[in-house]
């Protein structure tokens, strides 16, 4: 039933064409329609001819200069002359190391083999393009520099599930089941030193690359973390990283305050925002700007101080004159969660990253004391 509803509710493709891409990729996949578009690439629904299985093909990188390179007619931010973009390189390298039920599976990375090899294309293009002096880089190795990432296709995502089933948040068992899977996937990533850095249920304008997929086949609700376009490996101890990650509403306070020494706690904060959005059916901190988001956090959770968050004063954007809020009660913040669920959210939304609960510890929280039966018989809508 859920599957039928999903098919019916799927938005029509913005264009039916495959934007100059081959309909048939390497005689192996048939590209069917565009199903999503993010900052770093366009996603197509496709069929693997040999098995008949539906897959998702994400197009990344490429010279972005005429022909199939300009996917959708727009230049992607990192489609420059620099070869394989940093974000694509990380996404592929990290996803290839991740094999887990709650992380989307990258099946294959390939190029369009009907086009010349980048080496051959580079040789053919040498000279002319280079001397054109565009940005001092030269040609991009031709359109064959495009990478095709082939994933298992998952037909549903958390955002669409919430749109289709407005009462989803009232289904305590399903919320718990999805939360548990999200934390399982996250714990797995963190154990392998991978930060996701962009967990969110939202898709901009309803047409983004979906980050929290839900496989509803077989009547289950199997959650898969997807879109590792902002992910990166992290070391111990943590070191300086870019603060410009994580979509605003899901960005933790240490990043909003300009912190650059961060680690896995950033994902835990985002995960809590996702869970409460699922439960409340409304984004938790829908700020318009960084400071607006920060003040929405302070208003709900109470303003932090040096006592609750040692080191706060050292963060670049912290100002003692920021408004002081007492915060609201957890019954108000998470009205549909039981006391154990509220306690887990309180721990996941702890200001001080060092005191914030880890994904591993969250899985052992009393909120999940009764998870066993749910795992055996996944809850239904």
């Amino acid at each position, binding site marked *: 039933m859920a599957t039928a509803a999903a098919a019916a509710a799927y938005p029509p493709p913005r264009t039916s064409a495959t934007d100059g891409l081959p309909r048939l990729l390497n005689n192996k996949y048939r590209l069917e329609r565009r199903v999503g578009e993010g900052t770093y690439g366009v996603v197509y629904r496709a069929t693997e001819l040999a098995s008949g299985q539906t897959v998702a093909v994400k197009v990344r990188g490429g010279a972005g200069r005429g022909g199939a390179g300009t996917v959708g007619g727009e230049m992607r931010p990192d489609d420059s002359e620099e070869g394989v973009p940093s974000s694509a390189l*990380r996404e592929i390298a990290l996803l290839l190391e991740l094999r887990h039920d709650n992380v989307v599976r990258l099946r294959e990375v390939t190029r369009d083999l009907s086009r010349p090899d*980048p080496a051959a294309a580079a040789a053919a293009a040498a000279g002319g393009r280079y001397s054109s002096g565009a940005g001092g880089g030269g040609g991009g190795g031709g359109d064959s520099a495009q990478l095709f990432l082939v994933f298992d296709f998952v037909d549903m995502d958390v955002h669409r599930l919430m749109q289709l089933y407005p009462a989803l948040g009232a289904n305590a068992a399903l919320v718990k089941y999805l939360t548990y899977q999200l934390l399982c996937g996250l714990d797995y990533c963190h154990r392998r030193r991978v930060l996701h850095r962009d967990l969110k249920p939202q898709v901009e304008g309803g047409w983004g690359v979906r980050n929290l997929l839900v496989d509803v086949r077989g009547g289950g609700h199997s959650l898969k973390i997807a879109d590792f376009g902002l992910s990166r490996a992290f070391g111990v101890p943590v070191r300086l990283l870019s603060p410009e990650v994580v979509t605003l509403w899901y960005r933790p306070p240490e990043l909003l305050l300009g912190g650059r020494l961060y680690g896995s706690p950033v994902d835990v904060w985002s995960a809590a925002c996702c869970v409460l959005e699922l439960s409340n059916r409304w984004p938790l901190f829908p700020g318009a700007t960084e400071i607006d988001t920060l003040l929405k956090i302070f208003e709900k959770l109470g303003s932090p101080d040096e006592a609750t968050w040692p080191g706060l004063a050292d963060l670049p954007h912290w100002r003692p004159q920021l408004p002081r809020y007492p915060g609201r009660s957890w019954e108000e913040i998470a009205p549909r969660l039981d006391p154990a669920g509220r306690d887990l959210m309180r721990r996941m939304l702890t200001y001080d990253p060092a005191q914030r609960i880890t994904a591993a510890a969250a899985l052992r929280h009393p909120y999940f004391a009764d998870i066993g039966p749910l795992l055996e018989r996944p809850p239904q809508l």
Partner: protein
Amino acid sequence: GCISVGCCCRSCSAAAAASVHVATPPLRLPPAHRSRIVGWMRQVAEALGLHLATLFAAGSLLDRFVAASEDLPPDSMLQLLAIACMSVAVKYEEVGQVAPGVWLRLAVDCEGRPIYQSQDLQRMEWVILQAMQWRLHVPNTYSFLSQFLLCLPHAAPANTTAAAPA
């Protein structure tokens, strides 16, 4: 040089060992060459202010690439290989990126003209990534040792930039 990876590499190079100059697998750069290349990579890392993690990731790529190769890369390719390893490592590890032009200006002939073009660098990067099957998320000397030191009691924080005295 022709690059082969995976299981076929061992048997291929074993078969080749009898007839050509190839030593027992996996291949390694001659110590004197490796020392020069890695020393140069370290100077570059210092000049660009790169993180030690990046330098070691690049060194690991260099060694793993050579080990997966059928033949030692020709001398004329070694500098391009070193640059491409650095470039891939920077893309993987660093927050700030290094423009292709910066890499290309590191290799100049006696008249100061760049030896390689942007396409050469992209091609080499691609060959490395394919040969490594995109496996960049693997431990190296630096990442292992920093974890190990952290486990020791009273561990001092490791130096975090290549520019720091070592």
